[in-house]
């Protein structure tokens, strides 16, 4: 990022320090006491050097911010901040954006640290202003260095949990018969005879009692099922519906379903995998 400008803010202890300096300087002028002039000079010099060293503290800095995971609206997302001090050391820096900040104790060379940012809205977000600031060395003044630039981030809608829908006949097409392949869903397909290695929790004790042999519950295998998420109508609670759709995409992905998405202006064919999930979430973000 390219530094744009430096700013200084006086802290409350800085104001006290300035008041003492003024009092001493008035005393010096009033009495003509050169030793009070000396004290005033010392305090002014300290103020000046404190300003210089706070400036030097922000020199030779490079940084990069990379999102390390999916970014959802209103949920703190982890970004990777890599900060490098090309020469010397920086002390007690705070890195701040509109959406969050992080404290960095001492930087010598390159350090990596998580930066948690909370972006408020879905869609393409742009982190334009980034400030590094520090009250080092004395805490009387806080020096800010503002960077201009633009980090484009795709912010997905905030996922709001909802009841996972019952799978339709259409969505069951192409299922595999064996429940032992892939992950199982929660929905019961029917009953069957007990096979060796079936877990005891699957045993339907009532049916077993009726039949006299061991009977177990048979579940639908989710692998191969298709989840169609339809948010084609813009109506009241639109954002909430997008948030729920986001949840369903994430949950569907977790359950390894094939997921299709119907939006008002586009339709995305069923598909699986990380890239497909990303496509769906981006479509939701921009809807």
């Amino acid at each position, binding site marked *: *990022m*390219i530094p744009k400008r430096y700013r200084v803010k006086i802290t409350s*202890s800085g104001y*006290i*320090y300035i008041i*003492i300096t003024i009092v*001493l*300087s008035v*005393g*010096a*002028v*009033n*009495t*003509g*006491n*050169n*030793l*009070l*002039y*000396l*004290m*005033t*000079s*010392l*305090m*002014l*010099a*300290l103020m*000046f*050097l*404190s300003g210089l*060293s706070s400036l030097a503290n922000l020199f030779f800095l*490079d*940084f*990069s*911010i*990379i999102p390390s995971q999916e970014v959802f609206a209103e949920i703190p997302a982890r970004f990777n901040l*890599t900060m*490098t001090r090309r020469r010397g*050391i920086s*002390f*007690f820096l705070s890195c701040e954006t509109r959406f969050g900040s992080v*404290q960095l*104790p*001492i930087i*010598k060379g*390159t350090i*990596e640290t998580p930066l948690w940012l909370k972006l408020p809205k879905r869609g393409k977000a742009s982190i334009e202003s980034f400030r590094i600031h520090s*009250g*080092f*060395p*004395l*805490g009387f003044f806080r020096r800010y260095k503002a960077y*201009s*630039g*633009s*980090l484009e981030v795709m912010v997905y809608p905030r996922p709001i949990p909802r009841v996972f829908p019952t799978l339709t006949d259409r969505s069951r097409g192409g299922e595999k018969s064996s429940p032992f392949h892939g992950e199982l869903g929660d929905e019961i397909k029917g009953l069957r005879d007990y096979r060796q290695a079936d877990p005891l929790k699957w045993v339907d004790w009532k049916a077993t009692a009726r039949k006299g042999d061991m009977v177990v519950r048979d579940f639908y295998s989710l692998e191969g099922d298709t989840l169609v998420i339809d948010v084609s109508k813009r109506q009241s609670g639109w954002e909430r519906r997008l948030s729920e759709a986001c949840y369903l995409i994430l949950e569907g992905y977790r359950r390894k379903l094939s997921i299709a998405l119907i939006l008002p202006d586009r339709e995305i064919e069923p598909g699986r995998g990380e890239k497909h999930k990303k496509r769906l979430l981006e479509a939701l973000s921009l809807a």
Partner: protein
Amino acid sequence: MPKTNLLNISGLLAYGALIGSVAAIAREAPPVSVIVFILALIVGFIQDQRSIQNPVSNPLSLLFLVILGIFLSLIGITGENFFNRFLSILLIIISAKLISPKKSRDMLQIYLLNLLVVAAAAVTRWGMEFGLLVILEAFISVTGLVLIYGSYEQQEIAISEMWHLVRWSSLITLCLLPATVVFFIILPRPTGIFFAWGGGAVAKTGFSDRVTPGAVEQIKIDPSPAFRVRWLKGKHPPKPLWRGIVYDTYEGGVWEKRYKREIDFPKMWWAEMMQYEILLEPTDSEYLLSLGLPGKISLKSQKPILVSGYTAKVPDILERRTLYQVYSYSLRDLPDDLSPLYYIDIPGDVEERLLPLARRLAGQTVMETARGVESFLKTGFSYNLAPGEAQGDPVIYFLFTSKKGHCEYFASAMVLLLRSLGIPARVVGGYSGGDWNEMGQYYLVHHSDAHTWVEVWIEGRGWGVFDPTPAVYVKEKSPLRVKVSRFIDFLKLKWYYWVLDYDLKRQADLARKAASIFQSFRSGNNSIRLALKAPDFKKLIPIFIIAGLILFLKIAWPRFHNRPKTWGEKFVHFFQRHGYYKQPGETLREFAQRIAEHDPPLGHKALLFVKNYYLLEYGEKGPEDILGQLLKTMGDELKSSTHLT
């Protein structure tokens, strides 16, 4: 990794800073408040070390105690004891802070209060020790404040990181001293002051209008400095006699200056001129010292005048340290400003007693008589600083009974012996000699150098100087001791001259000097430029060499040694300079791919570079120039745009 608590360390430093500053004002502060402070310091230290709280450390109890302390301090406050009570209040507030639980903010307040104590010391301690105190306090306080700020951000840090902070604060302190000097020089000084404190030093009893022969004993045994003389122009005499008061009348065993008619400063264009600056310690007297015949005296605060006997004086007593400049004519014998007959009176009973002896010592001429009396006193009498109490007239007792005494007895005896013969003579009170400091080109004259000698009127020549006091054996100090004491005194003089007496005039002089140097550089005036450079250049050569070596070892050598050697290293170094950093464990291809995610055109070229580099390094030998070209293209591209990584 071992960690340390920054607040604890800054606390320890605060104790050190407070001990130093309070010691500087302890004499002026009320003893009770100093005792309270010492107790609070001990209690605070113990509770900090053991992490315990004392019963009165809650805010309400402390507030009550502070209000009570301030109330007691304010009882009976007057203009005279105002400063004393102010110190008392300051110490009470500090004591309360010391025994209360200390967080970062409290520690910061302690440091700011300490700053006020140091400022208070500026009112009472005017010596060079104040300068040393300021340096010490600056170092401790800056380090303490940096650590407090550190503790505010992060209470515990690794010891190695703490040393980084200490190094940084030391660097600030080192830069602080020259920066303070710059501010001190440029801060505007008003022409007048509204409310002046005393001079800081205690005024010593100087020469007064009336003096008995035994009165100088106290001065003679005092080794403290009386004044310093910075030589400005002309040849400095090897054994100068600093003239103070010329006594004219002897009555009842007391010398007195009765004739004080104001005279004009003489103008003698033919005589050799000396120019010097005298920094006079407080004297409790209105007389100024000078060498030879004073032609002009410049003094800031008062208008000096010249009275009979070419004695320089000011209207008011010199209670403060005073700096004045003198232009003197270097004359062996002084002219008359008053008829010599004013210096011939002698009490009848004394004359009667002295006449037989005086006649025995008389020569053919005034000069011979004066030399005879001088020689008689030098050889037949002994020097003694404690001759005992005189029975009757001190001079007669000295000449006929004790036969021992100090300079005032000798000078008085010679003057009275000559006057009994009708020769005009007078006693001059002042200082003899002084320690010439080659380094600072100045004399240091001590109170123990106080001296009286004789001036005799010789017709056709003027007032000739005679010194009947025999030489005194002085135990010589070791050369090293002399050198060290001269060096310390040189620093003291600089302190007085450049700190205590720095004023608007000197500020203006400095500004003019700086402006003329600047002008000479602009106008290309080689003479000034060479004059500025030539004498210092040779001395500076070793410094330049050392600085060059340090720069080389610190900057150039690491750069040369760590320069990228392979094309891979050059690639990483190139992107590092432009803000892209290769992650640990990342391959060059992954690094290039990461760049491509943020900046596809640049990343594409980076990938191309990596491909060619791999070919060159691990596969068939490829052309090297393409790699250089790619780096150049990418550099141009980066220059023309800004990138966010």
